[in-house]
C-alpha cells in the first residue's frame, strides 16, 4: 500500500492536506445528500478510500478534486445500491432523493436550503461545484464525468430552477422551462 511507504514526512504532509480538504469535502457531501450525519459517513469513507488509493493520485494534481470524485462515486454507488435493494415500486424513495417536479407546483416560497435540495442531483452538484466551491467548468465536468458544456447547461438549469423555486408565483413562468399549469394563471395576475 502506498500509504505504508509514506509514513514519514510525506505521510504527515499528505495527512495535513487531507485535513485541510475535509471542510470542503464535508460541505460538498452535505450539499449533495442534505444530511450532515450521512455526509460525515460519506466523508469518512472517502478518507479511508483515498488513503488506500494514494497510489493512483498524481502528485501536483488537485487533491480536493480527486477527493470530491471519490466521494461522489461512493455516494452514487450507495444511491444505486439502495435503489436496487429497497423496494420502491411507486418511486417514493427515489422521488425524495431526486427532486420531484410534481411537488414544485405546490410550492410558493421556499427556504434556500430546501429549494437546493429540490433540485435534481446532477444539477445540484453542478451548482455546488461551480458556484459554491468555485471550480471551473472543466474541473467540475471531470469530477462528474461529463463534458464541460453539459456542466454549463446543468449549472444554468439549476440556477433557473432555483430562481423559480425561490420566486413568488408571478415569476415562475419566466424563470424556468418547466411551467406548472396551475401557476401560469397566477403569474398573469
Amino acid at each position: 500500500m502506498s500509504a505504508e511507504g509514506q509514513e514519514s514526512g510525506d505521510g504527515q504532509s499528505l495527512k495535513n492536506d487531507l485535513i485541510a480538504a475535509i471542510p470542503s469535502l464535508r460541505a460538498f457531501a452535505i450539499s449533495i445528500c442534505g444530511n450532515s450525519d450521512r455526509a460525515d459517513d460519506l466523508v469518512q469513507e472517502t478518507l479511508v478510500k483515498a488513503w488506500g488509493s494514494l497510489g493512483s493520485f498524481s502528485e501536483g494534481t488537485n487533491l480536493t478534486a480527486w477527493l470530491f470524485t471519490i466521494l461522489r462515486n461512493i455516494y452514487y454507488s450507495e444511491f444505486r445500491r439502495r435503489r436496487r435493494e429497497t423496494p420502491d415500486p411507486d418511486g417514493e424513495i427515489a422521488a425524495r432523493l431526486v427532486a420531484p417536479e410534481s411537488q414544485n407546483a405546490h410550492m410558493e416560497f421556499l427556504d434556500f436550503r430546501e429549494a437546493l435540495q429540490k433540485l435534481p442531483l446532477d444539477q445540484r452538484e453542478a451548482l455546488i461545484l461551480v458556484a459554491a466551491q468555485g471550480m471551473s467548468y472543466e474541473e467540475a465536468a471531470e469530477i462528474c464525468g461529463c463534458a464541460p458544456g453539459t456542466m454549463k447547461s446543468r449549472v444554468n438549469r439549476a440556477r433557473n430552477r432555483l430562481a423559480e423555486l425561490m420566486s413568488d408565483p408571478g415569476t415562475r413562468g419566466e424563470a424556468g422551462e418547466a411551467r406548472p399549469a396551475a401557476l401560469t394563471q397566477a403569474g398573469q395576475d
Partner: protein
Amino acid sequence: MSATSKDPADFKEPIRERGVLLSVRRTIPRGEIGPPQKIMTSQIEDSMVKNNPENAVARAQSTEDQLRAETRHFAGSLQRSMGVFTAGLPTGAGASLHNGAGALDTGASLCSPRQKKDRPREVHFGDAIGKELQNLYDDLVAQPIPERFLNLLNQLEKNVVSSGLSSSAPGEKE
C-alpha cells in the same frame, strides 16, 4: 311504428318556425343588398348572436377580439425584446441612455429601470442565488472538523486501521 311516425311530425314543427328566419337569408339575393338590407342583416346577426353564440358572426367577433389582444401582446413582447436587445449591447452603447455616470458592469443593468419593470426577477434572483449559495456553503466550510476525522487519519497514519474498514459501508460509523 306509431313512435316513428310521431318523430317526423315533432321535428317538422320547429323547422317551420325557424323557416321565417332562414327564408330571409335565402330569398334575398346578395346583389340587391342595400342600406335597408344592412339593417336587416344586423338585426339577424344580433339575433343569431343571442340565440347561438357559436355561429359564424360570434366566431368572427371573437376572432377580432383575439386579434386585438394579440396585437396588444405583440406590442408588449416587442418592448420586452427591445429591452433584451438593449441589455445585450456593449456597455458603452447604452449606458449613457439610462445612467450618465456609466460604470455599469453588465449589460443587464444597462436598462435597469425599464428592464426591472419587465423582467425584474431574473437578474435579481441570479445574484441572490449566488450570494445565498456562497453564504450557505461558507457556513458549512467554516464548521469545525469533527474529531472523528482527525482520529481516523491518525489511525490511518499509524496503520492501525485494518483493511476491513476501507470496505465498510458508508453508513457505518466507527
